């Protein structure tokens, strides 16, 4: 678990850096693709709904995005955390993916 968290920290740090310095150059209709959010949602979709790695991911990625953003600290953490909870709740109660264990 610790290894995974460290790995996620590294990944989300790099993604936040890329988001702030690289991806901002590629705007589509004035918007920039949020790869951190995408990864958080994907983790929460494919993770076992009973586990909490997806929630940790949302906190870590939100933290790094907050670091490199000009908004008040906690803005992205809150958004990502709420998104993760929303996905987790949906998948825990209404969706069942065959190859993902539920216990």
């Amino acid at each position, binding site marked *: 678990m610790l290894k995974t968290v460290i790995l996620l920290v590294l990944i989300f740090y790099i993604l936040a*850096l*890329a988001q*702030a*310095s*690289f*991806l*901002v*150059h*590629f705007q589509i209709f004035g918007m920039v693709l949020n790869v951190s959010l995408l990864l958080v949602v994907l983790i929460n979709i494919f993770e076992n709904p009973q586990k909490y790695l997806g929630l940790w991911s949302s*906190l870590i990625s939100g933290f790094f995005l*907050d*670091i*490199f953003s000009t908004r*008040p*600290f*906690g803005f992205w*953490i*809150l958004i990502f*955390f709420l998104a993760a909870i929303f996905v987790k709740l949906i998948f825990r109660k209404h969706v069942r993916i065959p190859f993902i264990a539920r216990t």
Partner: protein
Amino acid sequence: MLFAVLAAVVIVALNFFQNKVRNFFYLVSAPIQASLWQAGDRVSNFFATITEFRNLKKENEDLKLKVQLLLTENASLRELKKENETLRTALNIGLEKEFKLTLVQVIGKDISQDSLIINRGSKHGIAKNMPVITEQKNLVGRISEVYDDFSKVMLISSKDSSFDARISEQEIFGVVKGRGGLKAFIDRVPQDKELKVGDILVTSVLGGVFPAGLLVGEIKEVKKSDLEPFQQAEISPFFDIGKLGNLFVITPS
């Protein structure tokens, strides 16, 4: 629940130290950020260039069209300038006081036929046999055919051209005839009259074709033979076929 409260406390606390926290991360990340920024800039420039190609093509076409329009405008202004200069020259030598003139432009030349096409016709008061001169009062020819909007000018060098002329300031008369190929000669000059190379020929009122005093050309070569009743001389017409642009047609006043 406890986790949520803890997270909220941490987040609020971070807001108090956000400057220091952010500063630390910026310091650590600065080299990577700079590289990523440059890379992003280059890649986006590359894609921007590709998307710009279409615009460039269109812009290029628009500019070409603009250049064409400007060139046309420029050419038209040059024509006006030339016309202006011609009129000024004509005014300076007082041509308008002597004759009623119509300014015309040469729009075609047929050197093999010693003829010109001008841009004025019967609609503009041009009629057959009207004299055509340059702004320096040099005789060019006369109108041989008239259309509604155009006319044909028969040059004095045309084989069909023939009119009376005299040597300037002398009482020597003769008939100037065209030889073709932009050449002309004076004929019917009595043997007892002395023609010299360089003598200037002007039109005479005798034939009734041209008004008197128009400059025809100068004598280039005298051909005198005792066997002939008259002497002849080759003439070099004063007009330069290559420079004929704006001309005047002398219309009856």
